[in-house]
């Protein structure tokens, strides 16, 4: 990458089938433009999103992650997002203690009617991650044979 090109972050979005995925669909049918850095993975519910999946995406080269689903009380399965919210509170606390960059994981509620909120969410996240730069710290550890950094030393 030459110095005058901007860094394009890779972002993985884990979204729920019933709200955010439909919301992102609405963004498209409303012809709203948003950043193309995001790759969407569709899940049945936010309660199904395993915390290891978020770590796996960092290990495989993602610079940021979006996790999004139904607003509280809107869950298709009544309480999946409430359980997910608790898990995120705990997960954020553990990652923070371990020194993982929690600014790179963006949580959000986007309903099926909020097409423009989805576009804003993606655009804002992309610009924030762009400012943070690539997450080489984690990728070095994941790919230590090629990139070095066994004990956290580059």
């Amino acid at each position, binding site marked *: 990458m030459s110095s005058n090109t901007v860094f394009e972050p890779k972002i993985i979005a884990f979204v729920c089938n019933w709200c955010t995925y439909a919301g992102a669909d609405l963004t498209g049918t409303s012809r709203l433009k948003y950043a193309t850095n995001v790759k969407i993975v569709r899940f049945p519910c936010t309660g199904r999103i395993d915390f*290891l999946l978020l*770590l796996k995406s960092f290990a495989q080269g993602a610079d940021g992650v979006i996790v999004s689903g139904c607003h509280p009380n809107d869950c298709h399965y009544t309480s999946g997002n409430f*359980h997910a919210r608790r898990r995120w509170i705990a997960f954020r606390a553990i990652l923070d203690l371990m020194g993982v*960059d929690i600014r790179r994981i963006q949580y959000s509620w986007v309903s099926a009617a909020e097409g423009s909120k989805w576009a804003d969410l993606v655009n804002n996240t992309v610009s924030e991650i762009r400012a943070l730069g690539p997450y080489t710290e984690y990728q070095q550890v994941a790919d230590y044979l090629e990139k070095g*950094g066994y004990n956290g030393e580059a």
Partner: protein
Amino acid sequence: MEKLRGRAAALLADGSVALIIGYEEGTKRPRPLFCRNSESTKKLIFDSRCINNLAVYITKKELVGKDRIAVTASISTLRSILQLYVENQLSEEKLLVLTVDLNGELREFVTFDEISAYVAQFELKRGEREQEILSKIEGMNREERWKFWLGEMSHCFKCYACRSACPLCYCSKCVVEVNRPQWINPWPAPLANMEWHINRAMHMVGRCTACGACGDACPVGIPIDLITRKMMKDMAPEFGYIPGQPAKQGNALSSWKLDDREQFIR
């Protein structure tokens, strides 16, 4: 001590329990002892040097059959027993708990409510070493914390002693043994070590009773018990639990409140 041995021998002699799990003198420190006859109860000891958490054995299918068993328990073990009961892993008909209280008196618990009332007198204390490392970590910024843990984890060779020592790691098939897909690589590499320890901490949120068995079991001295202990302390007030006093209202991650904190969600 004599009272404990006498009672243990009597329990085995009249057939009210089939097995007594306790401690005997080891080479360096007391080790677990499994008494199946009154003769072996002569070796039983119980004092402050007995730190193995014996609750780890009472969920093992190989040891616990259809007969009732007894276990000698320290305060940490009692907490673990309560948590196991909260998770429906124990029944009162199958278990008899013996302990020696601060006055040296032998105590016997038949119901979990009795254990709960007894444990409530004791406050969970933070050890000196734990406090020292915690204050060190609190003084670090994020990058330093990442480096610190990477350095600590670089000693880990995946013996899973932490898992074996923990009374609450009772799954018959652990996530690290699932290989379709392989969630966490089995070899000791930096990422695999990090993922294993984050995963372990996540599975312990709101369940850890801070017995410290994982940290004691670690052969290379990684302060892994610190992660789960800190999580327990931090999460307890938020989720409405009292550390060290499991209550039969479900675990932190299996229940929820409408007004859980969500300022981090946009």
